[in-house]
Structures are given as structure tokens and as C-alpha cells.
């Protein structure tokens, strides 16, 4: 070790040569040798070359005498003088002589020492009492022997027992196998062993105390008892397993870290804690909430007296450390298993009574009374009673005793009809309750059907104005209206058999009806509804969409009937819609085999792109740079190449200034279309399908063809097929053409420059594997809303196995590719091969259509947004459409964040 590293305590014996050498060193270091060291390694030395304590604010000071606790004289030894007259006292030194006051206070509060007060049994107390009694009539003169001989703090028997593991407060034969208990027993044993060794030390000054103790020992028994309970903690419910003091709160001044301790500890102050820092494994792994123990801890010298004397934790013995891995385990009990048939709904007494009644055979079907008002009233009351229970009937009977129109309640006119209606209502209500359970789907479906017909009879011709013109008292009127609002959606279920959109899938139809019912339940959407319980979230959401779509269609059809508009038209749509839905829906409930098959056919998909490795990378990989000697494309141009030619993952950037306005148009249109209604859902699916196909198409070739071929024929074709072409689209076309021309010029020059070969027929940069050769057909339906023809394309495979499942996974994929999809749209007018152009046209056309109908669908779509992930995606699509690449990235990331947070390790 170097000399300068030493720290001198006390007065060193100075030697001449040493002094000079040190001085030399000091000079040398001052001359700049030290300067090379970082500031925090430099040391301040005095003129003698001795290290000075450096710090504080004044630029360095020395604590004590050259950073020692001594004085200039150093530690003066105690002078020992002893004379015949004045004999030296034998000084008894104890640790207390060397401690500061606060240290003493600390020590007294916490130090471990035997005390006579430590009396768990109360033995000492009784002994003292006995002794006291003995003492009083003491006949023996002189010091009582008992008091000369100090009593052992514990009897040897108790001591032995304790060492064997017996614990106070337990019977001797009691042997617990509890591991916790064992551990504590061990600790206690060690405790005793330790304290008894301490005894010898502290007894010296304790002796005097002992004597004193016994003189005033009368007071002691009083607090002995409660002390004993203090010293034997019987059951620590939450054993302390950390190193903190009792009641120590590590987050006292940093509440923002509360609950976040653990693996993320030690993150820089500037790193913000965001939601991603949650421990994704918390469910799987119960991370110990401890400060990470540094290894250095163990390397600390054990001769740390201060540490030992002032140990703070009552549970830990000096010289011991809390085990980092504890045997202690809380026994865990699983939550009680809920029986499968348990319905988490409280059944009230009222309806129960009603239900009992339903066991009674149904009252005969009676023709309704002639008075239509009466009929309406009866039905209204019956429905209400059916729903709310018998209580309501009693109530209204009481209320309307004098009202002749309520005679049916008292068994008067129309009573039988009322009975019948009430029974029906009860049945209906029961069905409703039963429905969510898929187990009894069959039976409930039967009753459902019957009820649907009944309801058709009952509610079909019940316009609101009639009930308002009735003679009944206003409060009842109000109630029946109220029930109307409740019952309104039931109208849907009374639709004729033909119009049931999912009639080929009875379970689904059932769910659909349930959906309709719940849709307006109390004006709120019921949370748990929708789909059989065995369906996945995605399928459920999808079905939900279908239902909304169908519901809207039905509602419209209904309205059409009411206003005597062309019912045929609406029914047309209905059937076509039904076809759509079933084709989408049936296949969903089928096995995932189809999906797998589909997947296999689609993926893996190979694409090849040009990629330019950096020269350094090539060098480091010891490879020849494939692009060596070729000019690196200028960065500005590069964007153009990528977006136009190579079709890498670059979003088309708005290229010329005058395009921005048009872009805005597009984006706003896109936004609107994102909020577009459910009705387009299935069509969009197909569109997505098409788009996926489009991706396989070799862009560069198309582009080339487009550049060098006449595009007038395409234009003609386009206009022929799409009758409803937006003016916007023409702008688009113009722009696309412009781009193409620019690209053409650019390509030519580029080709010359780089010597790139672009064969006219073969795709130079990309080819596709397993490109599904989808033959496409068009079916035309009639859109009842805007009257424009809806073109649906169903690929050949779709026909065979139902349309492909728009599963979430695939949505994801689409999502990731959508910017290319828009590439394809902008390129659509440049492609010449019939198939491709067809597809492209379709996608752009449907886009235009979307814009049109969007505003009217805004409302509905917002209501269903949370259920459809798909729409979410679509929204992204349209928004992204005009956004720059960076914003797209942010978005993507935000969306997939939740997913990925888990996914990443």
C-alpha cells in the first residue's frame, strides 16, 4: 500500500527523512500530477503532504487534529499515580464511559441485557413476595442469607427447558411442528445463549443494581405481568422479513414510488416511470418487496460496534441477519368454487311468488275484449305485472278500486283475458331471464318462438296515439307508456319468420333477439350481454357488429312498413343483408380449422425488397459491398424511389405543394368514413380481403406498364363500372397520372444512372409465394338507403367455406399493411391487367361510397365503437391516410402497446 493512502491517527513519530520525502511528494503532486485525476479522486494535502479532510463549503477543513479525534498532543495516556497516602483507585471502565449521551439513550432503550424484570412466569414476583413475607418475621440477625445469595434469574429447570425449545406459555409436552414456531424457537435459543454470554460482561456493574433491586422489589410485581406479556409476543401475524425498523416507511418522503418498488429500483432520476414499467410478471411471480441487498453488505467488517449496539429491529438478534429466503410460507386457500349453475343475481320475493304460479297450467286463450282501449290497458298492466311481480298488481288494484276500467283486476270484465296476458308476460319474463344460460337454449328457443308470435299479435298494432287517447287515469297511462319504452325493442322479435336474419342458425338468432331486447333495456346497454359464453371476445365483438347491422336494417324495414313505403325494397335488403350475415356468422361459430386453413394458404408470404447495407457493415462482416461503386441514391430522391418503385414500408408522402389541399380532402373524408356505420362492415371486410390480395400484386411492374402503356382504356373502364364517382376521385386520378409521369421521368433517369434492370414482364424486386389465385365475382345488391348499387365481391374460396374469418389477428396484419394498401389505391388507375384494376377500383370506389353515407351513420357507429375493434382499425386507416410516417408509428405503437407490454419480457 502506498504511504499516501494511509491516514494517520494520533501523533506520528516523525522521522527526518520521511518528512522530507513526503514534502517532496507533496510538491510533486501539487505540480500537476494529481490534476490528471478526476476531481473526486484528488486529495487535498497540507504543506506536509498529509491528507487533509476535504469537503464542507469552505474549501476544506480538518476535523479535530488533522482529521483525528485527538488533540495536538494526541491521546494523552492516563497518568497512573499511586502513593501510599493516595492509593490509586481501581477504575472500573464500562462502555458507558465512552458513549455520548444520545448514544447512551439509544443503548438504554434498545440494548440487550438480562434484567430481573424479565419475568415471564411471574416466578420472581411470587418469590419476592415470599421473601418479603419471610423477611418480616426474620429472627435471624444480620444479613439474610437469601439476600446475599442472588437468586438466579431463572431456575435451572426453566433454563434447560427453554434451551430445549420449550417456550413460555406452553405446556411442556406440547410439541408444535409448525415451521414458523420452530424457527422462532431456534431464534430464542440463540437469543438465550447470546444473552447469557452477555451476562458476564454486564454483570459487573449490574451487581450493585441487583442488590438495590431487591430492596425496592415490592413495586416490581405490578408491572411484571404486563412486561411478561410484552416480552413474549405470542403470534406475530405478519412476521417482519425486511431490514427496516418497525413502522419504517420507505416511501415516507417519496409517495410517488409507493407500490412500485421492486425490479425497477434504481432507475435514474430523469427516467420517467411510465405505465410500461409495471411488472408484467407480477401475477406469475411474487417479487419480494425488499430493497435489493447489495453484496457488499456481507463484506462489511463485523467489528462494527456501533451497528451492533444500536441495532434497531426488535425481531433480529445482534449478529444475525434476516434470511433472504425464508421458509415462512403463508398457506393459501383457493377461492371457493362457484357452482356452474349459480346465477349472480338476487331473486326477490315478489317475482318468486309469480314464478310459483307459473307452474299452474296456463289459463285458456281468450279473445281480447272488443274495446281496444281496454285491451291495451289490460296488456299494459299485464306486462308490467309480469315484469314487476304480483305486488304491482295488488297496488294498482288498491289504487283503482273505484275505476271501472280496472275491473279486470277484480275479476270483472276482461279478467280472463288479463289472466292470459299476465301468464304470457310472466313466461316471457322468465324466458328472458333464462336466455343468458346457453344450457337450456333449446327449450327457451321454443317458448321464444311462441312468444314472438304472440307478441306479434299483441304489440304489432299498437301505435302510441291510441293508448294516449284512452280513458284510463293519467298515472296508469304514464306507466303503460313507460312500459312501452321498455318493450319497444320487442317489436323486432315479432317480425315475420322470413325476416329473421339468422334463421339458419337458431342459436345465433336467439342471441340476436336477446341482443335486441337488451339493446334498450332501461335505456342502457347491458354489460354482460352478447354471445354465448363459449365464444371468444373477438367473435363476440364481431357478432355484436352483425347484430347491430341487422338491427338497424330491421328497424328501417319496420319504419318502411309503417309508412307504407316499399316494403319490398327493404325486405330485399334484409334478405341480402341476412345472406351477408349468415355467411359471415356461420363460419365463425365453426371450428377454427377453416381459419387455420386460410392462414396456411395466406402465410407465410414472401416479399423481396432491395436493401442497401452500409459499407461499414459490409466491411465488418467481411463481405464485398454489393453496392460498391454505385452512387448512393440522394436522400431526397430516395423517398421517392421507395414510395414509388420499391414499395417498401414507406407511406406516400405528399409530393407537390398543390396536392396538400386535396390530401386534406381525402383525410377528412377518411375520418368521416371511419365513423361510418356498421352496415358497411361486411362490405369492408370484403374490401380488406381484396386489399390483402392487392398486396401480392407486383407493384413495380404495374407501374412500369402503367407508365409505358396507354391508360385511356382504363379510364373508360373505370367510368363504365363506377357510376357514382366522386369529383374528388377525378382529382385523384389526375394526381396519380401526374405522379406517374414524374415517376416515369425519374425512373428513366435512375435506370440510366444506376444501370438498374427492370425487365418488362418479370417482377424484378418482388415475387409472391402462394399467392391465392382468387377469382372474383360480383354480386349486386340494392342499398335501400342511398339507392346506389352496392357491389360485393366474394372470392371463390369464400363461396366454398364461407367468407374468411375477420379475426383479430388478421386485422392486425392488415393494420400493419395499410399504408401499402393506400399505395395501391393511388396506383389503381395505372394498372392495366383486368383483374387487378378491377380490385383496385373496387377498393377506391367503396371508399368513395363510404364518404357519402358516413354522416348519417355517425351516431350509431359511436354507440358501437367500443365493441368493434375492427372499426378501430379502420379509423386508424383513414386517419393515417394523410399523416406522416412518424405519426403513424406513434399510433401503431400506442395501439399495440398494451399487447406488447405483456409480450416483451
Amino acid at each position, binding site marked *: 500500500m502506498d504511504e499516501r493512502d494511509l491516514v494517520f491517527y494520533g501523533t506520528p513519530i516523525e522521522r527526518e527523512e520521511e518528512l522530507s520525502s513526503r514534502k517532496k511528494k507533496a510538491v510533486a503532486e501539487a505540480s500537476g500530477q494529481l490534476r490528471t485525476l478526476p476531481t473526486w479522486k484528488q486529495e487535498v494535502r497540507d504543506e506536509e503532504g498529509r491528507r487533509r479532510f476535504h469537503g464542507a463549503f469552505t474549501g476544506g477543513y480538518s476535523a479535530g487534529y488533522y482529521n483525528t479525534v485527538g488533540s495536538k498532543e494526541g491521546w494523552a495516556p492516563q497518568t497512573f499515580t499511586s502513593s501510599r497516602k493516595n492509593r490509586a483507585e481501581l477504575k472500573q471502565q464500562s462502555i458507558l464511559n465512552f458513549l455520548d449521551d444520545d448514544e447512551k439513550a439509544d443503548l438504554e432503550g434498545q440494548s440487550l441485557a438480562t434484567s430481573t424484570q424479565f419475568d415471564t412466569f411471574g416466578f420472581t414476583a411470587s418469590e419476592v413476595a415470599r421473601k418479603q413475607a419471610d423477611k418480616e418475621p426474620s429472627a435471624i440477625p444480620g444479613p439474610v442469607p437469601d439476600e446475599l445469595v442472588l437468586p438466579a434469574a431463572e431456575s435451572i429447570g426453566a433454563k434447560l427447558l427453554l434451551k430445549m425449545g420449550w417456550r413460555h406459555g406452553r405446556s411442556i409436552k406440547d410439541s408444535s411442528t409448525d415451521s414458523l414456531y420452530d424457527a422462532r424457537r431456534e431464534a430464542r435459543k440463540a437469543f438465550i445463549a447470546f444473552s447469557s454470554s452477555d451476562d458476564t460482561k454486564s454483570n459487573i456493574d449490574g451487581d450493585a443494581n441487583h442488590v438495590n433491586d431487591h430492596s425496592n422489589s415490592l413495586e416490581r410485581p405490578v408491572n411484571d405481568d404486563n412486561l411478561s406479556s410484552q416480552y413474549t409476543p405470542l403470534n406475530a401475524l405478519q412476521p417482519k422479513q425486511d431490514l427496516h425498523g418497525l413502522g419504517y416507511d420507505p416511501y415516507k418522503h417519496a409517495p410517488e414510488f409507493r407500490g412500485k418498488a421492486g425490479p425497477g429500483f434504481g432507475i435514474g432520476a430523469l427516467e420517467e416511470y411510465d405505465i410500461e414499467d409495471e411488472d408484467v410478471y407480477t401475477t406469475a*411471480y411474487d417479487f419480494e418487496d425488499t430493497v435489493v441487498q447489495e453484496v457488499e453488505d456481507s463484506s462489511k467488517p463485523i467489528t462494527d460496534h456501533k451497528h451492533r449496539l444500536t441495532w434497531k429491529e426488535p425481531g433480529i438478534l445482534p449478529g444475525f441477519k434476516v434470511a433472504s429466503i425464508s421458509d415462512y410460507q403463508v398457506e393459501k386457500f383457493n377461492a371457493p368454487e362457484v357452482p356452474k349453475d349459480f346465477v349472480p343475481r338476487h331473486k326477490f320475493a315478489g317475482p318468486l311468488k309469480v314464478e310459483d304460479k307459473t307452474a299452474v297450467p296456463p289459463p285458456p286463450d281468450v279473445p281480447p275484449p272488443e274495446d281496444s282501449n281496454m285491451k291495451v290497458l289490460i296488456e299494459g298492466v299485464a306486462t308490467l305485472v309480469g315484469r314487476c311481480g304480483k305486488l304491482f298488481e295488488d297496488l294498482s288494484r288498491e289504487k283503482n278500486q273505484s275505476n271501472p276500467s280496472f275491473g279486470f283486476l277484480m275479476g270483472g270484465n276482461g279478467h280472463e283475458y288479463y289472466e292470459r296476458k299476465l301468464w304470457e308476460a310472466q313466461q316471457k319474463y322468465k324466458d328472458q331471464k333464462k336466455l343468458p344460460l346457453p344450457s337450456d337454449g333449446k327449450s327457451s328457443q321454443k317458448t321464444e318462438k311462441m312468444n314472438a308470435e304472440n307478441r306479434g299479435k299483441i304489440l304489432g298494432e299498437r301505435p302510441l296515439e291510441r293508448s294516449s287517447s284512452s280513458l284510463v287515469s293519467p298515472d296508469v297511462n304514464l306507466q303503460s307508456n313507460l312500459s312501452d319504452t321498455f318493450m319497444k325493442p320487442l317489436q323486432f322479435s315479432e317480425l315475420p319468420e322470413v325476416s329473421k336474419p339468422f334463421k339458419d342458425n337458431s342459436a345465433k338468432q336467439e342471441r340476436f333477439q336477446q341482443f335486441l331486447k337488451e339493446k334498450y333495456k332501461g335505456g342502457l346497454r347491458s354489460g354482460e350481454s352478447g354471445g354465448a359464453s363459449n365464444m371468444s371476445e373477438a367473435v363476440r365483438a364481431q357478432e355484436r357488429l352483425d347484430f347491430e347491422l341487422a338491427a338497424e336494417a330491421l328497424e328501417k324495414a319496420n319504419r318502411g312498413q309503417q309508412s307504407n313505403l316499399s316494403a319490398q325494397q327493404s325486405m330485399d335488403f334484409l334478405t341480402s343483408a341476412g345472406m351477408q350475415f349468415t355467411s359471415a356468422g356461420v363460419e365463425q361459430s365453426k371450428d377454427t380449422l377453416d381459419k387455420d386453413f386460410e392462414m*396456411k394458404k395466406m402465410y407465410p*408470404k414472401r416479399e423481396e*425488397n432491395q436493401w442497401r447495407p452500409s459499407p461499414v457493415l459490409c466491411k465488418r462482416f467481411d463481405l464485398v459491398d454489393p453496392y460498391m461503386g454505385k452512387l448512393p441514391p440522394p436522400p431526397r430522391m430516395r423517398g421517392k424511389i421507395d414510395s414509388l418503385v420499391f414499395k417498401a414500408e414507406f407511406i406516400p408522402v405528399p409530393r407537390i405543394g398543390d396536392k396538400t389541399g386535396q390530401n386534406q380532402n381525402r383525410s377528412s373524408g377518411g375520418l368521416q368514413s371511419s365513423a361510418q356505420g356498421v352496415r358497411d362492415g361486411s362490405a369492408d371486410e370484403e374490401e380488406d380481403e381484396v386489399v390483402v390480395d392487392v398486396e401480392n400484386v407486383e407493384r413495380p411492374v404495374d407501374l412500369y406498364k402503367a407508365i409505358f402503356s396507354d391508360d385511356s382504356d382504363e379510364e373508360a373502364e373505370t367510368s363504365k363500372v363506377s357510376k357514382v364517382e366522386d369529383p374528388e376521385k377525378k382529382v385523384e386520378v389526375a394526381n396519380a397520372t401526374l405522379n406517374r409521369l414524374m415517376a416515369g421521368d425519374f425512373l428513366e433517369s435512375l435506370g440510366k444512372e444506376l444501370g438498374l434492370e427492370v425487365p418488362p414482364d418479370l417482377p424484378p424486386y418482388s415475387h409472391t409465394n402462394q399467392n391465392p389465385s382468387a377469382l372474383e365475382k360480383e354480386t349486386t345488391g340494392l342499398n335501400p338507403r342511398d339507392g346506389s348499387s352496392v357491389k360485393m365481391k366474394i372470392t371463390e374460396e369464400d363461396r366454398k367455406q364461407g367468407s374468411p374469418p375477420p379475426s383479430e389477428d388478421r386485422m392486425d396484419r392488415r393494420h400493419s399493411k395499410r399504408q401499402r394498401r393506400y399505395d395501391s389505391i393511388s396506383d389503381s388507375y395505372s394498372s392495366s391487367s383486368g383483374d387487378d384494376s378491377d380490385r383496385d377500383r373496387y377498393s377506391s370506389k367503396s371508399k368513395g361510397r363510404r364518404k357519402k353515407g358516413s354522416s348519417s351513420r355517425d351516431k350509431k357507429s359511436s354507440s358501437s365503437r367500443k365493441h368493434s375493434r375492427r372499426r378501430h382499425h379502420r379509423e386508424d386507416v383513414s386517419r393515417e391516410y394523410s399523416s406522416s410516417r412518424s405519426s403513424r408509428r406513434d399510433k401503431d405503437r400506442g395501439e399495440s402497446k398494451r399487447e406488447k407490454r405483456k409480450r416483451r*419480457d
Partner: protein
Amino acid sequence: MSASDLPTKEANVLKGHEGAVLAARFNADGNYCLSCGKDRTIRLWNPHRGIHIKTYKSHGREVRDVHVTPDNSKLVSCGGDRQVFYWDVSTGRVIRKFRGHESEVNAVKFNEYASVAVSAGYDQSLRSWDCRSHSTEPIQIIDTFSDSVMSVCLTKTEIIAGSVDGTVRTFDIRVGREISDNLGQPVNCISLSNDGNCILASCLDSTLRLLDRTTGELLQEYKGHTCRSFKMDCCLTNTDAHVTGGSEDGYVYFWDLVDATVVSRFRAHASVVTSVSYHPKDSCMVTASVDGTIRVWKT
């Protein structure tokens, strides 16, 4: 190699990590193994004797991946602190810190000559770092991915990476092209077969997929395990006869390479098996888990 030769018997348990172990890797000759985890440390072990040799501390957040040079002289590691650390194995000091990733770094690998480290990040990019020069700037950034890049593999001439966007992309430096194989499912981890002809990709639909590298064909799918939300490794055995991978329920699976049947499965850990690494020569395997242990398996 028959199924009975598979390493299914626990030979050692390497304990020391506090919290989840995120990766465990054999070194090139299989004598040592490196692990890294949530406790921000990298640990060097002798898995055959069950000895903990060294701990490397410097990361500010969890360490997600670690790789050692073939000559065992240098380490490269990456993790939640967005940095790639280049370590000296013997001194345990960080030689260089490569900063540049905008987000967490998921995986990192050396190339054959240990001259370049390529890291894959949550910021949808691959970055290659020069270990020869003193530059801390990336040599090249590849950002054609559209989602987090989860895993990277290097051959003599190629950089292969798998991403959550469902693609496995091969960047051929010699030819100067990018081949993108879209699997349609988020790719969690990729691993090369020992003959270098196939890529094994672990997808988040609980399927491992074996791809032919030259054609991009899907050769086989391996199912049975659970892999839905965690990054979990997969690899082929040293003979390329079996495919192995962990499961979220703590099991380790062995599939036959050709007919994709589950040859063996056993419970290896109490929790998610995050990493598996197969010995380059012997029938030996290490697995790491969220339960904080690394287990060594032998026949």
C-alpha cells in the same frame, strides 16, 4: 438421436437472480452459460457444476438479452434502459455503451467475428453497432419493420430478425436485399437451425413455425404449448432432430422436427419459461424462468 436422449433430467439449479430470469444462453462451446434478468444483472455460470462465476452489474433496468463472443472475451447485453452494453468478460467492466435505440432493446447478437453487434428494439428498428472502432453511433439502422422487433439472428452474411408485425426479415448483406416472410402472427423469437437452412419462429398464437429459408415455405408447425403474451425462446436441438421451447405454464416441450409430434414435455419451472438454450454439442439444455431460477437439464 432418439427421444430418450433428450435432456429431461434436472442436473443443476442455478439460483441467484432475484426476480425473473429473461434469458439464459450457452456460450459458443457450451461450457458456460450466461443469464440476465429483471434484477438488472448478467450472471455467468458454469452450468455443469452449478457454480455462479461472476455478476455483471451496470444496467439501469432489466437486462433482456445477452450474447458472448465465440472467443469468450466480450459480452454484449441489452435491456430496458435502451442501451446496448459491450462488456469485457474478465474484468466485468463496460467497454462501451451504445445508445441510440429510442425504446427498450429486446435482443442483441454478435456477428461471427464479433466485430458487429446487432440489436433489435421495441422502436421497430434493428441497429448494428461497431465493436471495432470507438464510435458509439450505429453503423446502420434498419427500420423497415412496422412493429417491435423481438429477436435477431446473425449468420455470416445475413441479419435475420423477427418482429411483432408478423414478419421474419432476412437482410442479406452480400446480395443487398431484404426478404420478408410474413407469418401472419406476431413473431416472438426466431432461431436458426444448426445447418442454417431453416428458421424456427415462435409466434404468439402458441405455435412454432419452421420456415425454409431459401423458399420461404412453411415446413412445419409445432403446437401444444402456450405462448400468448410473453417473449419466450425456442430452439432446435444440437442435432436438429427436435424442436424445443418453453411454455407459459412452466413446461418445456420437445417436438419431433419432422412430424411435429410432442415427443416429450415436462414441468421445468413454476412459472413462464422465458428462455431455452441448447448445448452446441452435448445433450444438455438450460432453461430460465420467471420464477428466478435457471435449470440445467441433461439426459
